[in-house]
């Protein structure tokens, strides 16, 4: 037997003006005059203990002999007494606990319902939740007042709720690549005129520039933290800079021309993305400036070219209007399911790669992106709902990157069979983030300036609040 730490009340007594008047009654949940008093945790009164009782029995024997010499009779009488002692030892036993369902919500016909749209924003590109402050931080591509701001999700209903990070109106006021580390609580920002990568430390409210490379248009289209290293590209210098996100210092500057397999700079030219897959680095095409539509596999140090995954059918889109005619793709690595998704704008096609065998990833499925609603192309991004585990494919049908009337919808995709299970119209989940412990999801849409890339071009950016 041991205490659980809970104290139960057998009886309750009545107080008149704070003093007992002598009346008491059983503490039952119903009946009686007073309210039921529920059990409470009281480790002082009811310490969590186990009680062990040890019994010891000792027997004492005494003998007495009476001799009668006349009759030569001898009589022996034996008596015994038994003494018992009990020893009680108390040992503290830690109670065990479990986590069970507390609050829940019922999924609606749509996985989440839009409840608030905050408009008149510049180009919010992504939102990041910071647990210690309870704030969402927003990277804005071209807000002339600041490229990084935060809002309080309890009160944020209009553009007036923006709180700009001091000094975050970066040189050129234009951000083209960014990332966030939840564990470090740091935001990384880079643009064509930023002279390097700005690192904002939420904990210390400090914005620090790590100088890298030279400034030029489209110079820093890739900034991402992978395996606790910040990678940031610099096109005109032909370098890939590695930054320690903790010390906020450059640890290596790689001349991309020296990277094995990068013949004619086909993998590291202007717009590319890098993913960490099974300990390798996979280099893929970014947005309409890439010179390869295939995936280059490297070791983690980029010193060993493992090989190329050829994606059948990929082709650059014909965008016209002065837009670069490079490959344009997006990717998503579903690490839990060992699947790597790639969508190619030019060929209008999904590709699914099985990564479960690290040494030989293989293409297991390709299927077309259909129903473009009279647009020429579609760009697809991905979001994973951290509460439900659902994967969403966001399809934006456009004619070119500056298309001001995109057709947006998203699909719930089965992570095992890759089929679309549901479709939701006129909406996007771009950068979907959960507010932990609530049924709220937040996301951002940069609007047209996100495509056009001119600082402060207009204010069609929006922040969405959903409930699920």
């Amino acid at each position: 037997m041991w205490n659980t730490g809970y104290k139960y009340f057998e009886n309750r007594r009545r107080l008149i003006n704070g003093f007992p008047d002598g009346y008491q009654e059983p503490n039952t949940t119903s009946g009686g005059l007073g309210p039921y008093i529920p059990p409470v945790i009281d480790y002082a009164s009811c310490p969590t203990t186990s009680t062990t009782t040890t019994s010891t029995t000792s027997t004492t024997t005494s003998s007495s002999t009476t001799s009668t010499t006349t009759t030569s009779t001898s009589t022996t009488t034996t008596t015994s007494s038994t003494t018992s002692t009990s020893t009680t030892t108390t040992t503290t036993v830690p109670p065990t606990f479990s986590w069970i369902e507390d609050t829940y919500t019922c999924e609606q016909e749509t996985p989440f319902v839009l409840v608030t749209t905050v408009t008149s924003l510049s180009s919010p590109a992504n939102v990041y939740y910071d647990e210690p402050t309870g704030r969402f931080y927003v990277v804005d591509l071209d807000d002339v007042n600041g490229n990084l701001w935060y809002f309080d999700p309890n009160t944020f209903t209009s553009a007036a709720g923006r709180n700009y990070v001091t000094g975050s109106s970066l040189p050129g006021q234009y951000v083209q690549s960014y990332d966030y580390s939840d564990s470090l609580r740091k935001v990384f920002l880079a643009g064509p005129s930023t002279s390097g990568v700005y690192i904002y430390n939420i904990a210390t409210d400090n914005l620090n520039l790590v100088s890298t490379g030279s400034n030029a248009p489209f110079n820093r289209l890739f900034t991402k933290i992978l395996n606790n290293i910040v990678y940031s590209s610099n096109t005109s210098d032909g370098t890939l800079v590695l930054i320690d996100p903790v010390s906020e210092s450059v640890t290596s500057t790689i001349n991309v021309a020296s990277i094995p397999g990068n013949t004619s700079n086909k993998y590291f030219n202007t717009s590319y993305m890098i993913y960490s897959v099974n300990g390798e680095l996979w280099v893929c095409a970014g947005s309409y400036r890439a010179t390869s539509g295939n995936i280059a596999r490297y070791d983690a140090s980029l010193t060993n070219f493992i090989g190329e995954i050829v994606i059948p059918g990929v082709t650059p889109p014909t965008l016209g209007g002065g837009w670069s005619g490079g490959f344009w793709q997006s990717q998503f690595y579903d690490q839990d399911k060992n699947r790597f998704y790639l969508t190619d704008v030019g060929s209008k096609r999904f590709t699914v790669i099985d990564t479960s065998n690290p040494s030989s990833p293989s293409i297991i499925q390709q299927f077309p992106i259909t129903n473009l609603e009279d647009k020429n192309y579609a760009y697809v991004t991905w979001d994973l709902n951290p509460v439900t585990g659902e994967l969403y494919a966001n399809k934006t049908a456009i004619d070119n990157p500056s298309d001001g009337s995109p057709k947006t919808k998203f699909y719930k995709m089965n992570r095992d069979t890759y089929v679309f299970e549901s479709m939701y119209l006129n909406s996007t989940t771009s950068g979907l983030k959960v507010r932990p412990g609530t049924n709220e999801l937040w996301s951002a849409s940069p609007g047209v300036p996100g495509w056009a890339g001119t600082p402060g071009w207009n204010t069609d950016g929006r922040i969405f609040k959903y409930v699920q």
Partner: protein
Amino acid sequence: MANSGIKIVLTLKEINDSTGLPTGNTKPNVSNDPDYIPPSTDLTACPVTYTTDCPVVIATGVGGNTIEYEFNLNNSVINNPIVKKVVVNLKSGVTVIQSDTFTLPIPTINYFSGDFTGLSSGTYSIETQYLDASDVVNTTCPNLAIINL
């Protein structure tokens, strides 16, 4: 809004294993937590309602002779006992040119798509029909999309 029948746990509470009583501690239910509870079907907590709501059909003419279409059916329709099949009709005027039939339910699937091929230029419309177990039409949703090829 109508329930889909899926319950999503938002927060977890800690209980004492011996008593089953809560300790007062709570935390968010997120997928990277070892105590994470994934969504599950719970028709008691989240009962599903039944409707015969018409879907929104998105259709596009492709290549001058093909029409691609897609739509989403709510669970309130899919779980409705009187809806056993969904027929998608491509019509020219009042004449049905081609049809696709989907038999329900297809587990976990709310999304349906297809295409009509070999068409000539002209104006087409798409309608859907809900059929019961005897293939009797109980709901017709006309003119869900108009396409000019």
